[in-house]
């Protein structure tokens, strides 16, 4: 008993410290966004009022990631989708941060009601739980999302068990999602990770004269899929490849650099995240700078942080990407003004500088915007008819194309997967300032790569796809980017 009595003041002290600590945490977290909470509080009553009065509301759930590798793009995703509703359907943002919600807005006379946001962490299990929460607890009848590859495969599989609802992919780029799962009520208006590199291999073969390429890829699903786009394309033109697959997040690439043969025509990097810079630096330290026109890479090679740190000799490297930053097209201008109109003020919830329009060419923003656009277009075509298990909407979505999409026209194939335009950019160095400059657009890129990928071929992996010569729709048809 004595021991207990002695300990109690200490316990009381720790309790006080704990409560004070928690208080501080709450104040710190709440304080940064207090301005938006007030405005959203004011508008919330009208949201619930509208929902109560209308049974024909379009109950939309938006799935994204608020944790994990892509957690930073939560508001960019939500903002992309909602910017469309704000700019074109009369909705109003409840606050500068997209995740504070929207009020009002109608499509074909039906009020838009955002029932919730899915907050996953790039794992399939988390996405499945979040989509079930949106559908089964919040009663969403239309879901926009999810964000990343494995998640989309899980959600597409789940959509098969909910045939009366509609699922439109956010920006996930796994190939299996549409090529293999083929859910009749899951639609994807963006390309997959392989489509994002279409044309790079062909240009490297034809214009740069590569015959044998070294492909280094992160040893996980996106790395393989991304590299698969280059390998399929390059081999289709007649090239051969050597593949290396360091684990994701490797910091010391020396053993992999040692495996790169002394003689090769070009190297394609599908190493992402912190690995891109580490690999490039260690390569140049070990083997000297890349010779002119011997480097290409996926979207990560064009990342501003990489460009800023990149070696001068890497200028000229080719980068495959589904959007571009130097577009001057009217469609892209209209899209950007929609983003500006919807979310004019910068917010701390978005990566610096904090405006949605600064993330316009990010796949996280534009693909969610396109998803909302396609939904709007199809719903308008069927006059908001959601009866009969949404069958009219499903049929309309399958036929919906977006000829005026910001970065090139989008149509769907028979698996309800987008056929898109891809872009090839080049790293530039104007007056010591590295930048990126789009040089080619690659039209009509389909997910199947002209039948090379099918529902029964193995998924991209360390040794997949195999290297075969093949005819592709865009071979030799890459067009110089029209906006230069």
């Amino acid at each position, binding site marked *: 008993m004595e021991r207990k009595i002695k300990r109690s003041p200490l316990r009381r002290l720790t*309790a006080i*410290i704990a409560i004070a600590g928690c208080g501080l945490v709450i104040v710190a977290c709440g304080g940064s966004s207090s301005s938006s909470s007030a405005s959203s509080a004011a508008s919330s009553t009208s949201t619930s009022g509208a929902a109560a009065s209308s049974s024909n509301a379009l109950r939309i759930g938006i799935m994204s990631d608020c944790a994990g590798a892509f*957690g930073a793009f939560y508001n960019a995703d939500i903002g992309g989708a909602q910017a469309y509703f704000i700019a074109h359907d009369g909705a109003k943002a409840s606050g500068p941060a997209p*995740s504070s919600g929207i009020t009002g807005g109608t499509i074909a006379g039906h009020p838009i009601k955002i029932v919730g946001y899915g*907050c996953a962490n790039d*794992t399939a299990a988390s996405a499945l739980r979040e989509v079930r929460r949106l559908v089964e607890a919040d009663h969403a009848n239309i879901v926009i999302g999810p964000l990343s590859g494995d998640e989309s495969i899980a959600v597409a*599989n789940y959509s098969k068990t909910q045939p009366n609802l509609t699922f439109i992919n956010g920006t996930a780029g796994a190939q299996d999602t549409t090529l293999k799962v083929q859910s009749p009520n899951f639609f994807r208006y963006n390309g997959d990770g392989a489509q994002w590199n279409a044309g790079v291999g062909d240009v490297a073969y034809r214009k740069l004269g590569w015959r044998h390429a070294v492909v280094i890829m992160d040893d996980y699903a996106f790395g393989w899929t991304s590299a698969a786009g280059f390998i399929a394309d390059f081999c289709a033109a007649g090239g051969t490849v050597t593949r290396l697959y360091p684990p994701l997040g490797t910091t010391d690439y020396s053993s992999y650099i040692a495996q790169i043969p002394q003689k090769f025509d070009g190297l394609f990097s599908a190493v992402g995240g912190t690995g891109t810079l580490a690999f490039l630096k260690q390569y140049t330290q070990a083997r000297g700078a890349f010779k002119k026109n011997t480097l290409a890479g996926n979207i990560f090679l064009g990342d501003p942080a990489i460009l800023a740190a990149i070696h001068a000799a890497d200028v000229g490297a080719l980068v495959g990407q589904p959007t571009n930053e130097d577009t001057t097209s009217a469609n892209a201008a209209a899209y950007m003004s929609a983003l500006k109109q919807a979310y004019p003020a910068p917010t701390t919830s978005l990566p610096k500088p904090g405006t949605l329009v600064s993330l316009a060419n990010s796949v996280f923003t534009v693909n969610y915007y396109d998803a909302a656009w396609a939904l709007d277009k199809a719903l308008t075509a069927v006059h908001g008819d959601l009866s009969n298990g949404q069958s009219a909407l499903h049929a309309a979505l399958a036929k919906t194309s977006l000829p005026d999409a910001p970065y090139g026209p989008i149509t769907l194939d028979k698996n309800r997967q987008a056929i898109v335009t891809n872009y090839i950019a080049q790293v530039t160095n104007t007056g010591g300032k590295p930048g990126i400059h789009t040089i080619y657009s690659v039209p009509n890129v389909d997910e199947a790569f002209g039948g090379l990928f099918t529902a029964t071929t193995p998924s991209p992996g360390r040794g997949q796809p195999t290297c075969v010569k093949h005819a592709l729709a865009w071979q030799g048809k890459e067009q110089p980017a029209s906006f230069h």
Partner: protein
Amino acid sequence: MSAVANAAAAKRSGPDAVTIGGWALLAVVGVVLLIAPAIFDSYWVSQILTQALWLGIAAVSLTFLNRYGGMVSLAQVAIYGVAGFAMANVVHTLNSEGGLNLGWTPWLGVAFGIGVAVLVGLLFGAIASRSYGIYFLMITLALSLFVFYFFGQVTQLSGFGGVRSVSRPGLVGDTITHPTPLYYVCLGCSVAVYALLRYVVRTPFGVALQGVRDDPERMRSLGYNVPLHRTLAFTLGAFVAAIAGILSVWFDTQISPGSIDITQTIAVLIIAVIGGLSRLEGAWLGAIAYAVINYYARQHTPTLGLWLNPGRFATIIGIVFLLIVLLSPDGLIGIGGKIRRAIGRRYGGGGARPAESEEAGAGEQAEVPAAAGTPASGTRGGLNQRRA
């Protein structure tokens, strides 16, 4: 007096005993859970309660190891992942979506999954059984990461994005369209696991295990094979975790390396600590709290604006964890005992009597041997250190 006798004394009057009131409470909870599909809406049953039940089974394997073996294991999620992956690979999957797809019947797959996980548990237990405290924690963490990276790399076993559309026995059926059967399976498994563990800790093996927990050196000098006891306890924990692994695959309809990553490892530890490491029931209480907080934290609440959003869940669960660790180290399950003792002190006049401390758990545990005249010395093993 030997450590075994101490543990035996603890068994008779100590924190494990369930009083008549305790049994009555358990019976009420049991009845509510039994008729839950009739009183809660389908989402609550299919998602929150079902998830809490299988997460509780995963957490109770950790609670058991810590409470009776003094082992804080971070390998429980890895072991349930092994069970899940083993089963998912050998049974039939629709459209050959990842995995080996050997086409075994679901029940054979269950037996295989549990068998493989138990063998892996035996191996892991043998590796880790000679280390204590923080070293045990680190070894099990390493094993956990090893399993995660193994399935991340060996894609023949883990598929492109996990093994999906895993077929389930007819008893369970389609867990998305008809979730109630899985709920009852999880409930049945929870009851069975609870009964099994309560039984085991009362066997000579269980009592010796508690002796090993309290004073390994003394038990060794008495002729007990300490590493063997710890290895076998770890293997039993692996068996329990394996059951959770099978249920998790049925619940999610798939398993991927992401399902058994470090986040999930931490989640199971958090559940066990929130619920209370001093009593087996705490695991399920912690799991319910975790699932409910998870659900409400993720609700879109414009009235709250961006208050703690979108990382609200992690922040809230973190605060709860902090409060529990500081204010009620015996977890939520210990709060009941605390309140009862407080009432006892105020109205009973004589402070906490031994009979009132049956829910007290870890705090009182050290006092039982102390009262019996043996200094509680040399307690080893992670969280157990605070008991000394």
